[in-house]
């Protein structure tokens, strides 16, 4: 039996790696993939605690998180494609048209 806190620790490491990815990388698609990594880490904790307390609610929540992530990826990638059409670049440093 693997202790639940091992899963929580692994999820914390993956989550902070995702946050680092959002902060460090300039490519919009890599930033998006880091957000997916964060969501995945949260899913892992949900399933770990569902197993700990033998309640299925954790797994149902993971189901909903996956659905929302899929919808978010669809809309987000559509946004990136549209921005690329005008700006011809997906570096977030170049998205400064609203800057005063």
């Amino acid at each position, binding site marked *: 039996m693997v202790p639940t806190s091992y899963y929580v620790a692994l999820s914390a490491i993956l989550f902070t790696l995702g946050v680092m990815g959002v902060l460090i*990388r300039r490519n919009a698609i890599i930033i998006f993939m880091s957000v997916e990594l964060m969501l995945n880490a949260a899913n892992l904790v949900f399933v770990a605690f569902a197993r700990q307390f033998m309640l*299925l609610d954790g797994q149902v929540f993971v189901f909903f998180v996956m659905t929302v992530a899929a919808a978010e990826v669809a809309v987000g990638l559509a946004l990136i494609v*549209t921005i690329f059409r005008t700006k011809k670049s997906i570096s977030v440093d170049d998205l400064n048209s609203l800057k005063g």
Partner: protein
Amino acid sequence: MTPELILFFALAVVAIGSAVMMLLSRNAVHSALYLVANFAVVAVFFLMLGAPFIAMAQVTVYAGAIMVLFLFVIMLLGADMLRQPSQALPWQVPIAVFLFVAFLGIAGIVLVPQVLSGVTPPAVEADTLRKFGGPLSIGKVLFNQYLLPFELTSFLLLVGMIGAVVLTRDDKKKG
């Protein structure tokens, strides 16, 4: 050192390694493939935690649909050919690394006593565990207790689809 513990540590190393390689890779396609590897390892973790339905959903939806969509867009935009652009804020990388270490330190203060005490999940026999995360039990909970969120996610997916179509529509062609 049970086999399950050895498997957990081996898979944890692969998961963290693929996540780090995803962040450090210069080529966007390589990053996407490392993320697919990470999702596959997390799916195996779900199987170890008695969630077979969620594990299959992870492989089908996340690795099979979402990452394929990412790869489509990367190939469409030619992002694997784009050079890494220069940093606008040069102090951001050292601060991000420092905050990463600081957060893990704080999390460690909380987690290390728990890890040392080693609270394990309750041992159940294999038959109960197989039925625990199976489609029948998840369906029973999903369509009885969580019916309203389920219907709302269908609405959410519809709105997402409409949004994606409207956003990428070419405005110059009218009618």
